């Protein structure tokens, strides 16, 4: 029997488990539970994390990532928010790759200097800018030079393989994993999957049985979604508690720690495991 599942079923969250949601948005979107100010974001983040027993969240920009917006405003909000909850929130900056390369690199430097150590991309929603277009190749170079992981809404498999090979020190995280892609995940050690996706019955169990637990990390697309949409497939999966611990927090914590992005309190929990 799974102790993790027993506690979750009983409504107790995750006592003694390091749990980090690898995919959270905080700004406005076309739908969902959104916040109108940084004050609301900070308060709401604590409410939702505590309601689900989560230690921390990877916080990505929201609506300011979309086409036509000034993404630097979104990064300003992100810096402000993460500064209010530095022990629990890990910021992921964002850019629009359709901007000029010098602007993109300037923004990466500015936000990285402000302490944000991770990058989120949404290029498929930004006029479908290619995942290996020149501005993103420049961004990956920056990520390699500054030891920053990159999560993206979607990369085509051939593009992800190419960039993972060209930038072997960068951890690339595909968001919205909902099953399959085993060969891709196995192809390179620096390709990972955030599992938030509307996968079919048993999708995570099959994935773990096929390639093991080390490539996966939970995410929810909260706080638009209930955080539990990402937790449920992990805790209810017919896998070991050791595997669940990895997917719930240890795997992403190691990536964040490598980048120097893991808050000290979470780092202590990681090291105590």
């Amino acid at each position, binding site marked *: 029997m799974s102790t993790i599942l027993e506690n*979750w*079923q*009983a*409504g*107790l*969250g*995750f*006592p003694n488990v390091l749990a980090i949601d690898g995919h959270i948005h905080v700004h406005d*979107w*076309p*739908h*969902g*539970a959104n916040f109108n100010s940084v004050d609301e974001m900070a308060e709401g983040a604590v*409410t*939702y*994390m*505590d*309601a*689900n*027993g*989560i*230690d921390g969240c990877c916080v990505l920009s929201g609506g300011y990532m979309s086409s036509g917006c000034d993404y630097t405003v979104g990064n300003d909000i992100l810096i402000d928010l993460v500064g209010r909850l530095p*022990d*629990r929130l890990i910021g992921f900056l964002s850019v629009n790759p359709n901007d000029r390369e010098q602007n993109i690199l300037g923004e990466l430097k500015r936000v990285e200097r402000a302490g944000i150590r991770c990058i989120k991309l949404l290029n498929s929603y930004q006029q479908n800018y290619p995942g290996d277009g020149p501005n993103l190749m420049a961004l990956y170079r920056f990520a390699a030079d500054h030891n920053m992981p990159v999560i993206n809404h979607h990369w085509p498999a051939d593009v992800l393989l190419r960039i993972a090979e060209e930038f072997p020190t960068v951890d690339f995280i595909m968001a919205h994993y909902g*099953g*399959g892609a085993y060969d891709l995940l196995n192809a390179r050690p620096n390709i990972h999957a955030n599992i938030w996706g*509307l*996968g*079919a*019955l*048993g*999708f*995570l169990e099959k994935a773990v049985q096929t390639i093991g637990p080390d490539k996966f990390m939970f995410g929810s697309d909260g706080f*638009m*979604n*209930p*955080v*539990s*949409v990402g*937790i*449920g*497939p*992990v*805790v*209810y*999966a*017919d896998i070991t508690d050791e595997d669940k611990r990895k997917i719930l927090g240890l795997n992403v914590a190691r990536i964040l720690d490598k980048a120097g992005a893991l808050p000290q*309190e979470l780092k202590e929990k990681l090291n105590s495991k």
Partner: protein
Amino acid sequence: MKSNPQMPDVRELRLFDSCVTLGRLVRAGSAESLTPDNIYDVMDQHDIAEALVHENEARLVRPRSHGNNRLLDEIRGMDRLHPVWALEPPKKPDSAEARGMVEEMIGAGVRAARLMMGVAPPLLWLWDDLLAALEEHSVPCFLDFAPDNYRPPFGATNATPDALIMDSLRDVCLAHPGLQMILSHVSGGLGLAQPTLPLIYRVPNLHLDITSIVDYWREVSREAGPERVFFATGMPYYDPAILVSNVQYDPILSADAKRKICGDNLRALLEGVR
């Protein structure tokens, strides 16, 4: 530092899944099929106490009566499963035929209908006879907007009705105020058609299940009341684990509201069938 929550135990919520497809599926990259042989195992694994089930064949192949009757044979004696018949309206204006369909359904012990509105769009003149017959018996109706299985989502139950469909649905719902209509597995991408939530706020007999892009239900339950929301997983097309804990771990809803959404709303509707 996190604080550990104290939420209701999921088993106390008595989850009653309102969207489950039974029957063998053959789709590339798709789910395990749910059959009479494995469905209790899947329900037990995910703490689901009861389920409304429809037959895959009834959704996808005409005459729908074949699949509907097959369902009755498949789940006979399985008390945790409650049959739903997939229906579409008679082609000709014929209230007697519509009444006959519903009486056959009720006579067979079926207390919920799945209206195939992705195939037969919600035009009042098209559905009026059948809806009048369903309304006479207070049969809860789950609205299925998936198109025929030659097009995406290729047989699955998830689909996103557009604004024009929602406009037609408004006329249908208002013309049959005694009929409880539940948008079932309407989900997609970054959201529903914009008028969907405004329509729910304007039409008291239109409701939503929680598969609906997994977050809208929270707004509906808080703004329009928990009576308007129904627990559902959409399995096997969606992994039920995605949705099982959503209501349980909501930080705002009361325990009473959670029990309603998780199953008591549906139980009350089924008990009200005449």
